[in-house]
């Protein structure tokens, strides 16, 4: 609860900075503020409490994920310093929206009442609609915003309908009550339908097949930093929320529902990976890669009771490598009108460090050992085999192989092509974010227990 309040306070402060004409200080102060919030959150780690009639429930799960979100936001805000250089007059709006978005995200993983959940997801979505469309003179950005908005509201409608049916069945929005009631024998069919509808709405948010179509278009059209946010923070938030939703409501997930999850998971990874193969736009490629990672993360839903730690680990690994990759993309594609692979040619020569970082992050996504991505996959495979879905794991393995194909396309472009322009100045923040993110990723790879055992 304190986290939420602090974040909102920080958001309001951002707006005030603008009024007091402290534009230059906004990013540093926000970062300091966020670090403070992070400290606050971590200090609450072991306390399990519920606030205000069970509206907000602070648990290990919520604090762990909130911390991850805060860390990601810190990175994203830092990158904003560089990215919004030319938009000084709007910088406070951008930063404030991101902070509020974080508030929505935190609400989504710490809700105790479906009202909070719904409002959280809406705050997050609306912020994203705005950010996606924020490059207002760019038709691509407009289109991305519009597509995201239309489909997002549609999904919101479905989530709302689901919530409504759950309410109809249970007569309450409180998840604890719902959880207790769901144990009773006589349940109207409204309840499972409600759960399924909410799940579908969330599957849209995580961009799982067949609700994934928006992702590549929106990722491509949005400003690069927004894409970074969507592919890391937003995806992880949606996944964590889906996980929490299903586990906390004790919605006795039936076998056939699990089969649906298996099919969606398989389809997501397969389609995501195969479609990524022929992409030339890096953001679009990462969008498809994100779809496949969503497929991987959906595997956690098959063993709800035990897989929170693995989800956290996988999410951290994925989002940290995503941040590192995107910071390099931001550097390379700054002042370019597209994010084509061509732009990465010869990066290994002009800027070996960033090339190495991008390589490392792609290897992490591909699941090559010692990077955190590998252990993420490993624990997922392990749990899924334990849950008895060997076939899913085999499909996942085949997909890992396919995925190497396109990750390496980018690596090859960096190392085997001649650069088409000279080395340019690299801003410090890019280095800082990229290095810190990848170091965190590798640290996670070397000491996976740090995160894996957190939610045990």
């Amino acid at each position, binding site marked *: 609860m304190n986290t939420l309040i602090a974040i909102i306070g920080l958001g309001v402060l951002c707006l005030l900075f603008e009024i007091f004409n402290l534009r230059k200080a906004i990013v540093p102060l926000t970062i300091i503020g966020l670090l403070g919030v992070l400290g606050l959150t971590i200090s609450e780690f072991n306390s399990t409490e519920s606030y205000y009639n069970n509206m907000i429930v602070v648990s290990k799960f919520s604090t762990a994920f909130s911390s991850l979100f805060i860390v990601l936001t810190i990175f994203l805000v830092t990158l904003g310093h560089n990215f919004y250089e030319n938009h000084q007059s709007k910088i406070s709006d951008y930063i404030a929206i991101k902070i509020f978005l974080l508030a929505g995200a935190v609400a989504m993983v710490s809700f105790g009442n479906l*009202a909070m959940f*719904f*409002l959280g997801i*809406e705050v997050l979505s*609306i912020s994203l*609609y*705005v950010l996606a*469309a924020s490059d*207002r*003179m760019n*038709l*691509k950005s*407009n*289109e*991305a*915003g*519009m*597509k995201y*908005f*239309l489909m997002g*509201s*549609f999904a*919101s*409608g479905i989530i*709302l*309908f689901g*919530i*409504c*049916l759950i*309410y*109809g069945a249970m*007569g*309450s*929005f409180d998840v604890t009550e719902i959880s207790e009631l769901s144990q009773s024998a006589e349940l109207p069919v409204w309840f499972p339908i409600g759960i399924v509808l909410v799940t579908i709405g969330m599957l849209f948010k995580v961009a799982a097949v067949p609700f994934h179509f928006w992702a*590549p*278009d*929106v990722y*491509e*059209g949005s400003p690069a930093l927004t894409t970074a946010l969507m592919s890391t923070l937003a995806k992880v938030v949606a996944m964590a929320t889906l996980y929490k939703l299903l586990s906390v409501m004790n919605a006795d997930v039936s076998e056939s529902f699990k089969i649906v999850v298996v099919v969606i998971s398989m389809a997501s990874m397969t389609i995501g990976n195969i479609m990524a193969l022929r*992409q030339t736009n890096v953001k*679009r490629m990462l969008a498809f890669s994100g779809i496949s990672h969503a497929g991987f993360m959906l595997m956690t839903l098959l063993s709800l009771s035990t897989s929170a730690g693995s989800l956290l680990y996988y999410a951290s690994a994925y989002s940290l490598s995503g941040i590192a990759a995107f910071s390099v993309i931001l550097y390379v594609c700054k002042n370019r009108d597209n994010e084509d692979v061509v732009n990465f040619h010869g990066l290994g020569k002009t800027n070996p460090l960033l090339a190495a970082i991008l390589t490392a992050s792609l290897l992490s996504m591909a699941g090559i050992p010692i990077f955190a991505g590998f252990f993420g996959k490993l624990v997922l495979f392990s749990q899924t085999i334990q849950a008895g879905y060997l076939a899913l794991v085999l499909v996942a393995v085949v997909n890992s192989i396919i995925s190497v194909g396109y990750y390496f396309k980018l690596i090859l472009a960096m190392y085997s092509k001649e650069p088409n322009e000279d080395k340019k100045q690299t801003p410090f923040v890019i280095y800082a974010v990229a290095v810190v993110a990848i170091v965190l990723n590798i640290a996670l790879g070397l000491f996976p227990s740090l995160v894996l055992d957190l939610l045990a």
Partner: protein
Amino acid sequence: MNNILNHIGIENYIFLSVILFCIGVFGVLYRRNAIIVFMSIEIMLNAVNLLFVAFSTYHQDAQGQVFVFFSMAVAAAEVAVGLAILVSIFRNLGSITIDNLKNLKG
């Protein structure tokens, strides 16, 4: 005080709002004019609101109605943002037909 549902039956409300919701879905799929699509989404949300109120009566519980307030706030916020996006598209493109938005694909 009698429960009104004894006259109508909750099923009827469910069917009504399902049909209304589906009309909204249909509208989203059928129309290419962004404004009408927005309106269709509003219809969907209203269908749900109606069901909330019906369920609220069914359970004799105020929470359902309270949730309708939130849903209205959300609807308002969405419409505001949506229309803002629409306006900027209209400025750039001179049209609000969503079929014209096909630059991002592949």
